């Protein structure tokens, strides 16, 4: 029940885009960080060379990725989608990294 209510509350469409609000801000800052950091860590595995060489690119682009991810999350149409935008990619990247890490 509680989850259902939470979902309902978060998925209400705001009438105006002139207020960003704390929820989106937190999602943007921390969600954006997770999405960007995990995505960039995955990129180390995806670039086809040894880690010592391939890590340079994700390392440099990490902060830009954070900024872009934060921007993408902060302009989400609803709070719920902002939450999804920060959680879902992080989760996918995390699973992919775990697979790459273990095998």
């Amino acid at each position, binding site marked *: 029940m509680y989850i259902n209510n939470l979902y309902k509350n978060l998925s209400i469409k705001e009438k105006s*885009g*002139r207020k*960003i609000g704390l929820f989106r801000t937190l999602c943007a800052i921390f969600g954006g960080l997770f999405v960007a950091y995990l995505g960039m*860590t995955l990129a180390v595995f995806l670039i086809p060379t040894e880690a010592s*060489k391939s*890590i*340079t690119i994700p*390392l440099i682009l990490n902060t830009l990725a954070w900024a872009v991810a934060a*921007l993408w999350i902060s302009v989400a149409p609803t709070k719920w989608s902002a939450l999804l935008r920060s959680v879902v990619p992080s989760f996918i990247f995390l699973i992919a990294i775990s697979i790459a890490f273990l095998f």
Partner: protein
Amino acid sequence: MEKENNKLLNQRFQRVHVVAGISFSLLMYIAVFFGIFAMLLPYIQVWEKPSRHIEYMDVTKINYAEMIDPVIADPNFPTNNIRITLPGYQHDPVLKISHMFVEPILFDPNTKEKLNHEGDQSQLADFLNGMHYGAPIKDVGYLIFGFVAVGGLFLVVGGVILVIRIKYNNKARKPVSRFSKLHRKILTWVFPPFIIITLTGALMNIGYLGSGPMTYLATKGQTYNIFDLTSPVLFPEIQSVKKENITAKMLPIGDLVQKAKEINPEINFQKITLVNWKDTTARVKIEGYNPYMPFLNGISNKPSITLGAVNGELIMQHKVMDKHWSGLFLDSAYFLHLLFGVDTITRLFLASVMCVATFGLGFGVLLWIEKKAKKFPKNIPFYHWMAKLSLSIMIGVLPATGLIFAMQWILPFDLKDRFVWQEGIFFVSWLATLTWSFYRINSYQAAKEFLKIAGVLFILSPILHYINSDFSPTLLWEKALIQIISIDIGLLIFGILLLIVGFILPYKNAQVQKFWSKDL
């Protein structure tokens, strides 16, 4: 529905840009403002020190042995991997002999005597450079400026999206639209170098700090330290050679540099590393910067030539393109930010681009403040804490900076804790501008006063330099100390410009409105 969604999206893009922009604007301005001085660091560090008022020498014509031999003769000085920084590196005319484990020793290559230098007593250029990334408050400062850099990236990306998505009206003549237009136009033009510089700035301040988990995962649990992972690729150590313990006669280093110049005439040589010096296995690694391949070398990638020191044979040559692409990528990202060994024209060009960028930031803040002020009738003076704070930080920093430039040649060089005084006076005077801007009801009046004071101080500093250094302009010219004389001229011109702006800027509200509505 589609239209409604688009409207909301545009509103959000605009709103996040405004919120992030006004929160980061002042710190970003500080980073960019002092960054301009950091770009001119090589010249300022020569200008500020009496010990550096010496002539530049051709690196192939110097008798190195006379300076190096007495240093190495000291049994306490290590004999392997001794580093010699050649005169002219970063425009410093001295020759520096250093080693990882000992204090560097400086020489005047003209007289070949140990240089009696100021050391910690003179740190003007370093201080201005440090202000650029929060060094005065150490780790806290690095973190703050690192996050500001990320905020800067957020704003640049968001700003570019806004310019693409929204059709702005460029014709309106009100101050608000004028500020908006200037803010947009300026930053659209300067954003490509700006974004690269901000990116590497964020990397240096927080990127490496937060790289632990990424390194751990990437190496599958071997290390947390990014440098353990990348250093062998980016900064490979010099191969050690087994000593034979037979003393041999070394070729003069000047000849070896000359030989290296013949092998690769494109490189500007900066540093020499002596390996197994005085042994039959001795060799020198001479490294530098290739100005014909900008963006590809200079930071991690240093083209070098390794020669045998006994017979001068070529042992190894590292050219710019020999580096792995990860090193080339790193260097191209860092190039615009660090400008190691880069020539004066590029430096001045980038410094002027960033100067324009400070105006872009300033107009952004003015736009925000003007929008707040618009809500009040014109006859009521507008008084807002953010306006006063920005006034003090953005304009008040000018007299404070002018004051430390003037202090550099007022304070005697043997004053105890000289730099603490200088730094202290800088911060106190900057704080004073804050109280003054809150005291003055009319911000424009305060701004005019700051600009005039700053102008006078900047004009005074070259004059004080002539008086207290005993180097008149003609003497500087005769000795070909172009770096120093150009800083003097630069300070003078900057001071005059500030004075002019201080006088022409209007300060009555009606005039102000008219001033910003004029045709540009």
